[in-house]
């Protein structure tokens, strides 16, 4: 896979009413899946995000980078309303998924989370069998009607997550018995099984060794063709490798966003420049 993608030709498409978000990565073939406007997040009295406006393209990987505590995970958790589960957290602003505001009262967070799957920093499979882990989401959403359908769904999900070959003969053993990298792929399979439109990944490789990381990155690259993926990462090399669009957060603000190649080669903001060259963060 190419380490960096040259998206400079896409730069020509006019930036619409946002200054920070320069362009839609990948050019016009990528429709906007998520449109965030003036998102502010407060944890109690503390403001964690300040007026973040960002467009996330469909069928592409968007990386959120920035130093620790800059609000990138907070922004990620706004998309599937996981912040709702934190006491004292309030979210202001609009986040549109296919034009619908996810914070709208008519949107049920449970259904939203079926459309927007999430993979967490630490692999967190349920302490159940591998099969049950993948089948759980489908079960609670009533996606399958028969046992064979469910089995087929588990198989395809595990295949998509690149785990089928390793676990096909031990589907009924505990998911917690797998290695860290396998667990993380199991968790991805679990997210895929609900057939989401968006997959959010919160530092999915930070607990993994380099080989497992490479495997996950490969997987992300494969999944890009079917899903809109947003990934938070601390590794700039990873952002450069897997993403088509990159957004740089600093101190709760979105400093700069644009095609990955451009952010890494030609950042406009000096803070972005400092961060990607390793001067802080």
């Amino acid at each position, binding site marked *: 896979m190419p380490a960096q993608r040259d998206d400079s030709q896409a730069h020509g498409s006019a930036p619409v009413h946002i200054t920070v978000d320069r362009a839609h990565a990948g050019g016009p073939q990528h429709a906007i899946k998520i449109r965030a406007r003036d998102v502010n997040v407060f944890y109690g009295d503390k403001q964690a995000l300040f007026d973040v406006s960002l467009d996330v393209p469909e069928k592409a990987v968007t990386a959120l980078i920035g130093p620790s505590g800059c609000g990138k995970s907070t922004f990620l958790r706004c998309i599937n309303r996981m912040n709702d589960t934190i006491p004292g957290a309030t979210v202001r602003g609009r986040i549109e998924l296919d034009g619908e505001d996810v914070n709208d009262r008519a949107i049920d967070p449970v259904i939203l989370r*079926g459309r927007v799957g999430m*993979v967490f920093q630490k692999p*967190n499979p349920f*302490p159940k069998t591998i099969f049950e882990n993948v089948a759980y*989401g489908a079960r*609670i959403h009533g996606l399958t009607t028969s046992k064979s359908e469910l089995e087929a769904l588990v198989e395809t999900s595990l295949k998509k997550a690149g785990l089928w070959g390793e676990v096909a003969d031990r589907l009924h053993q505990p998911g917690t018995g797998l290695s860290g990298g396998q667990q993380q792929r199991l968790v991805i399979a679990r997210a895929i099984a609900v057939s989401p439109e968006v997959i959010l990944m919160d530092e999915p490789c930070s607990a993994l060794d380099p080989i497992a990381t490479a495997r996950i990155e490969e997987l992300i690259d494969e999944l890009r063709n079917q899903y809109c993926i947003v990934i938070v990462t601390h590794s700039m090399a990873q952002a450069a490798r897997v993403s088509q669009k990159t957004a740089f957060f600093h101190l709760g603000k979105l400093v700069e966003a644009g095609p990955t190649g451009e952010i890494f080669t030609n950042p406009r903001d000096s803070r972005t420049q400092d961060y990607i060259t390793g001067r802080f963060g």
Partner: protein
Amino acid sequence: MTDGALPKDKTAFRQGLETRLKKRYAQERRFRLYGQLAIVFALGFLVMLVGRIGLQGYSTFIDYQVTQTIYVDPAKVNAADIVGSNFDRLVAEQMLARMGETDDESGEASGKMMDIISNDFGYQLLEMVRDDPSLIGKQVTLSGPVKADAALYYKGELKRSTPQDERKLDDRQLTWLDKMQASGAVSKGFNLDFLTKSDSTEPEQAGVLGAVVGSAMMLLVTAVLAVPIGVLAATYLEEFAPKNRWTDLIEVNINNLAAVPSIVYGLLGLAVFINWMHVPRSSPLVGGLVLALMALPTVIIATRSALKAVPPSIREAALGVGASRTQTVFHHVLPLAMPGVMTGAILSLAHALGETAPLLMIGMISFVPGVPEGFTGAATVLPVQVFIWENASERAFHERTAAAILVLLAFMIIMNLAAILLRRRFERRW
């Protein structure tokens, strides 16, 4: 040598290092010694406690049965009024006759005999003759226990060497006991009656069955009420309730309730359940209600800490795939917390099992010579039985007190074993 800076003189540093190292090792050895001493101390007390109760109580499980053929003398039984006949005296006279003695006119000898053999003989004979009057004039074989004082003599606790006026049985009675034993009529055996009979005014016929069944029924009521209510309350408070001043207040109060002396729950039960709701006093139902109130805070606290110990990543995982809050809690969090919940619940039930004070408040102190007839029938429970027997004047009840404590301990050990097994079962699901 100063802190933080590297020492200049290396030999001084090395020497200092050695002394510090020695000091550290000595400290560690000392601490281990303290720990071992504490364990020896605790184990010593446990051995003393169980040993003393065991020594005091084991003799209860030995009993002496007399088997004797009795001639149902037509002269002594009024065929027209069988129930009105004095079978106790008939048996006593027959026992005397087997030893070649005859009753005197005043009935003094048979009276003395009645003091060493259980009146169970009389009951048995009465029932047999009542059911089959043709037995009058025939010989029947009866067996039953000796009286508790006589058993104490056989066990060696009542000695002939004690002056006659300081012991309960006189020389004549002791001679009879010796004769009976010599004739082979007395057999030593396991006192099954203690486990299959209920309380009685006669110590040799008193057993713990009524109390064991009473305890089990009461505990069932407690478990059925306290565990589901406690677990659900804790789940609501921990997983659903907003964290605000009201829930803080509730939490503080639950913690306080766990520390309220148990007798206060007894008073509450008396006022609310008996005087206001008219639940029958002294019943397993009212006892279970009171103990459920008492166990509830403990169950809630144990469940809450078990829920808190479930890693948040599991909640996030479930919410992340689109489970609702209720699904998250009931499919993932609560099952993972189950071992802790079970341990807490069974510990608080074991605590409730040993509780006496609140039960005295709700009238469980009464003498109940049988197995409770139902959840609203009169019942007694093991700790109260221990309390009643301990206060009895007959010496034979005191060994029964210890034996009842042994039964109570066995009950608790069985419960704790059940707790461990249940926890293992749940934990096997990782």
